[in-house]
């Protein structure tokens, strides 16, 4: 695709890039990990061949423990359901990874490119737990939500898959059409702490 093609992430209209650096004292830090490749993978986690195929294609074993995630140089994989995973890959590589998966996998499976369907919002900062507590009913304590865990749950009045990246950093996988709502929600919820865009 030519260079003149304008690509717009779901939060493009919020012009986050222009807000970067406008404040650096906020208790909440927001970053849109925009325009990454997103693939939805379906398959039978009891099927050894399927698991082996994925491992070969992605260089990492599929996380089959509920709510777990895995990472390789190629991809970040999040468990969504016993037969469903989200594979996040570098921007633009989704097509190749999809083809690779299709070539390695046999039998009953499904892959869908959903790169346009969602975006990833990274929330961190000293007040991030408070903001998350305002937004989701899931228990954020490290005992119940350790680093690396991914949880499909409610986020305000929409849903999100939430991955804990570190003790005070979360990735939210948010649907494109709800992203403006989530952006408004985050602004409202972080008012008392201050919001820094990075």
């Amino acid at each position, binding site marked *: 695709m030519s260079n003149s093609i304008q690509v717009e992430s779901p939060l493009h209209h919020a012009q986050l890039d222009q807000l970067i650096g406008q404040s650096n004292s906020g208790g909440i830090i927001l970053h849109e990990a925009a325009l990454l490749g997103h693939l939805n993978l379906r398959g039978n986690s009891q099927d050894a061949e399927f698991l082996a195929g994925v491992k070969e294609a992605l260089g990492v074993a599929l996380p089959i423990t*509920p*709510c777990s995630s895995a990472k390789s140089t190629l991809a970040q994989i999040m468990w*969504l*359901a*016993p037969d*469903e995973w989200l594979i996040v890959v570098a921007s633009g590589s989704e097509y190749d990874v999809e083809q690779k998966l299709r070539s390695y996998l046999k039998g009953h499976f499904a892959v869908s490119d959903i790169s346009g369907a969602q975006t990833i919002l990274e929330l961190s900062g000293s007040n991030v737990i408070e903001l998350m507590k305002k937004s989701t*009913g*899931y228990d954020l304590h490290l005992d*119940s939500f350790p680093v690396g865990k991914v*949880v*499909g*749950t*409610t986020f305000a009045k929409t*849903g999100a898959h939430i991955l804990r990246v570190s003790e005070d950093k979360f990735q939210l996988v948010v649907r494109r059409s709800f992203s403006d709502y989530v952006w408004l929600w985050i602004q409202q919820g972080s008012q008392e702490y201050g919001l820094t865009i990075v």
Partner: protein
Amino acid sequence: MLLIHCPYCEEMREEEEFSPAGQAHIERPLNPEEISDEQWAHYLFFRKNPRGLHHEMWLHAAGCRKYFNVTRNTVTYEIMETYKMGQEPNVTASKEGQS
């Protein structure tokens, strides 16, 4: 506000992640054309609706999108067990000594 164990995510989650989906273990007749209108109506509309122990389906809508079964007391709202689709309950009214 119920707290429900999702047998697929294998942990307790808030009621708001789920939506109730009615009585469990209703099987679609294999031969719809051969049964009477009354039998068909029974499958479509008639329900146990028990006061007490109930087996019902819930959907983990905000989580894994799986339907599963819940055994719950409809008076105290206490949940006895949750189990996967296709499985049978361990706690039943007869086992509990209720009718």
